[in-house]
């Protein structure tokens, strides 16, 4: 913008150069623009103070221009002295405000300061501020993004816990301590409502307490921890509190809250991603101009950063060459590679299916064995934890296999990493799905002897049982993370540091691989989302878990690990984390929705005893509402409403698409304009050269070269302005 403006205004004030400027290649487009915005600009140039030197005019034009937009003084790229002058000048120009104006200005200023102080206070309250700063200084922004993601999850879990606590737990706690009228959920007496107590009778051996604590059975089963404990239906005080409705709505709202929060957080990353995808040829500029993390304070980290940048640049250049090579492949080679890829993918599918089958078998086996009384304490624990162990093993082995086979497939290096990652994400999240499916197949017993709609004989309270499974998964996941840090990474560090043999050197220090770590916590979060319905205290457990994981990971990063050789960019990683989290959320909401809408709730426990499905609470409440309100709600839920909403959404989407297209065209035009201005510049320089050659015809050494430098200086002034 500015160069054209300057050229444009010089056009008015210096009539001698008029002819020259008329010949500019971009003059036509300027004329066009003048029609639309000329008046404002002319007013601006009227306020110029002392047009003595050309560069002075430049400066003037810039300041006046920015004054017009009323940009704060601090946003001017000038030294403090200049900014102070500028401020005073503005005050003079605007006329010193008196009375009302002064008062308003002061109030405005102090309000702004108050707001800034408030923000200061808020940011100082932020969790782990100093830790995050330290990590940033030592490892750069890539790893930092992992930790801020973890912090976000802690907060999210805490909010989910608060929701559950306030709307579900608190009413139950209050009623148990006061004498309010309570209606317990009860059903017609049938076999289905029998819920045998699972707490151990007689003398309890100590290790059984441990088993109970780790697997949520025994004394833990009948506590606030699990679904089965919430048996109230109505709490009557000044008004009647409908606990089943509250339970259901809280579940829906925590899922929705997570969705909205994640989408809001990922919006900025998504925008950037779109921009990046639009012209993907900017990767080199991004690496060079934004490559250095200026926040790095550690000498060691700086060295690492240098080597990783070098590595990355070399890889990218290599990749470019590989791409060129790929483009030159013959048809025969291409055919061979496609066949190879198909075979490898078949193999991957086979590996996945065998993993899923193992998980299924392990789950079914564990479920069947749980009924039998085990004699051995460890064996009992093993049986309880069998599905978790198999899932963890599968998730440990498959990434290794995937890493190994990807090299046969001959993709470009960047795509290799992404593709392996996608496979791992699929594996992680699908294994939870398989576990749930096998549980579901056990709970809903096909066709035979299902008088209650679910397998009442084995699971008198199946929701609590699912809650226990999720509880076990969360606990086991945490134990694994802690164990890997303490028993594998730490000894490895010691061995590598204090042992000179070749094997140890080859093994090297543990790499802090961000994608795997992120997958780990997303896996935990997905379990938490699924389990919160069945185990309302799970978000609290998860909050504590992530809180501890933060410190574990920090210690492990500081002492045991080195950053990965192939760095993970903060921008791409931020978006990637949230996308994986979103996939996790989508996956989590499927089983929760199915179990709310389809599977009949237990007859023996929980708030939904009287309903054929949990969702039935909502229609029943709606029919009890006043007629007008209920008909409005019914209308909202009708097909007509849904279709019209769909149509409106479609229209909105079309509008946004059209807008995006328009923006794209504007960008293209602006690019053209920039190119045009470049041509202008060269044209002017040529003209100047010719003119100077005419003047200094006798001294050939001061020719075009000198002019080029003048032009350069001209730009320096502009940049320093």
């Amino acid at each position, binding site marked *: 913008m500015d160069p054209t403006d300057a050229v444009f205004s010089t056009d008015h004030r210096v009539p001698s150069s008029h002819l020259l400027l008329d010949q500019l290649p971009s003059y036509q487009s300027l004329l066009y623009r003048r029609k639309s915005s000329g008046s404002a600009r002319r007013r601006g140039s009227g306020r110029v103070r002392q047009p003595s030197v050309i560069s002075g005019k430049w400066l003037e034009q810039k300041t006046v221009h920015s004054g017009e937009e009323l940009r704060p003084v601090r946003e001017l*790229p000038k030294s*403090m002295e200049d900014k*102070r002058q500028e401020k005073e000048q503005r005050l003079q120009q605007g006329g010193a405000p008196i009375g009302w104006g002064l008062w308003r200005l002061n109030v405005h200023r102090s309000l702004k300061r108050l707001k800034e102080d408030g923000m200061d206070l808020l940011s100082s309250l932020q969790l782990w501020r100093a830790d995050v700063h330290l990590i940033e200084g030592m490892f750069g922004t890539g790893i930092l993004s992992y930790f801020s993601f973890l912090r976000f999850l802690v907060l999210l879990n805490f909010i989910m816990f608060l929701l559950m606590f306030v709307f579900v737990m608190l009413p139950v706690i209050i009623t148990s301590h006061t004498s309010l009228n309570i209606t317990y959920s009860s059903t017609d007496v049938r076999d289905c409502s029998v819920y045998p107590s699972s707490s151990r009778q007689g003398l309890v051996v100590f290790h059984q307490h441990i088993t109970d604590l780790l697997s949520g059975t025994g004394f833990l089963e009948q506590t606030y921890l699990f679904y089965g404990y919430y048996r109230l239906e109505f709490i009557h005080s000044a008004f009647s509190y409908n606990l089943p409705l509250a339970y259901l709505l809280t579940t829906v709202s925590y899922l929705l809250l997570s969705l909205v929060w994640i989408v809001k957080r990922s919006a900025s990353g998504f925008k950037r991603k779109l921009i990046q995808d639009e012209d993907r040829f900017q990767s080199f500029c991004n690496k060079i101009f934004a*490559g250095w993390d200026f926040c790095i*304070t550690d000498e060691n980290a700086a060295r690492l950063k240098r080597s990783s940048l070098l590595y990355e640049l070399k890889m990218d250049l290599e990749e470019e060459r590989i791409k060129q090579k790929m483009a030159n492949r013959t048809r025969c080679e291409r055919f061979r590679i496609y066949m190879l890829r198909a075979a490898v993918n078949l193999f991957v599918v086979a590996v996945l299916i065998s993993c899923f089958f193992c998980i299924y078998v392990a789950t079914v086996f564990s479920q069947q064995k749980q009924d039998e009384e085990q004699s051995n304490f460890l064996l009992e624990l093993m049986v309880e934890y069998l599905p978790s162990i198999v899932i963890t093993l599968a998730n440990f082995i498959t990434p290794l296999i995937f890493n190994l086979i990807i090299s046969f497939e001959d993709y470009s290096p960047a795509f290799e990493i992404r593709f392996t990652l996608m496979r791992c994400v699929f594996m992680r999240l699908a294994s939870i799905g398989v576990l749930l499916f096998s549980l579901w197949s056990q709970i809903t017993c096909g066709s035979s002897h299902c008088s209650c709609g679910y397998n009442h004989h084995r699971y008198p309270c199946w929701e609590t049982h699912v809650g226990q499974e999720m509880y076990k998964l969360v606990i086991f996941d945490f134990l694994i993370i802690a164990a890997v840090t303490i028993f594998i990474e730490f000894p490895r560090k010691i061995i590598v540091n204090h042992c000179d043999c070749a094997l140890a050197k080859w093994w090297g220090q543990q790499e802090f691989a961000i994608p795997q770590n992120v997958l780990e916590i997303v896996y935990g979060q997905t379990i938490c989302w699924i389990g919160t319905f069945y185990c309302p205290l799970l978000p609290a457990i998860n909050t504590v878990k992530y809180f501890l994981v933060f410190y574990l990971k920090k210690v492990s990063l500081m002492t045991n690990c080195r950053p990965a050789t192939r760095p993970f960019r*903060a921008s791409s990683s931020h978006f990637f984390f949230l996308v994986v989290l979103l996939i996790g959320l989508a996956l989590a909401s499927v089983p929760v929705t199915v179990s709310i809408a389809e599977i009949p709730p237990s007859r023996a426990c929980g708030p939904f005893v009287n309903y054929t499905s949990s969702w039935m609470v909502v229609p029943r409440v709606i029919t009890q509402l006043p007629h007008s309100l209920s008909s409005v709600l019914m209308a909202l839920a009708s097909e007509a409403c849904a279709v019209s909403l769909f149509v409106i959404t479609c229209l909105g989407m079309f509008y946004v698409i059209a807008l995006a297209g328009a923006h794209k065209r504007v960008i293209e035009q602006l690019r053209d304009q920039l190119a045009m201005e*470049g041509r202008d510049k060269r044209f002017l320089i040529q003209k100047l050269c010719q003119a100077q050659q005419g003047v200094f015809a006798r001294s050939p050494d001061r020719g075009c070269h000198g002019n080029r430098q003048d032009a350069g200086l001209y730009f320096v002034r502009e940049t320093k302005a």
Partner: protein
Amino acid sequence: MGGKASHLPKESLSEYQELTFLTKQEINEAHKKFCQLQTRENGPMERVSMQIIMTLPELKSNPFRERICHVFSTSDRKDGSLSFEDFLDLLSAFSDSATLEIKSHYAFRIFDFDDDGTLDGEDLRKLVNCLTGETDDARLTSEEMRQLIGNILEESDIDKDGTVNLSEFQHVISRSPDFVSSFKIVL
């Protein structure tokens, strides 16, 4: 502006708050740091020389430290020494709340090693060497360097004059996702 006074007067504090992107806390912090640096200089000088500024842990491992000092210095002798206000300017440009325009402007000047107002091939070469390290084994080969600079110019040099000027640089930077998060120094 400093001397040995450990506290800034209130009115200059509020003025600095208005003229920079820093908060009260950060300005006080910066003042404390700067006073510490001053005491290492012989006698209470108004400016602190570049060598001493560069001992700050935030700049010590930064390959662009000399350039940063030169860009923010208002010294007449062009020696890169900073007064307290220059120091605040520096921190303001690198602060979290500074606008993209300010950041990209100063980044351009930092990367413009020969101060001629454009990033030409030589500037880019120096920039890449700063990033990857100066030692011989860390450097890209000349062939790779040529390819890299060619790529950069192809991506950013819109008017195809072989150099990157400020507006082209800002155009590129505005689409660079990592720039804002990486171009910051917090005391």
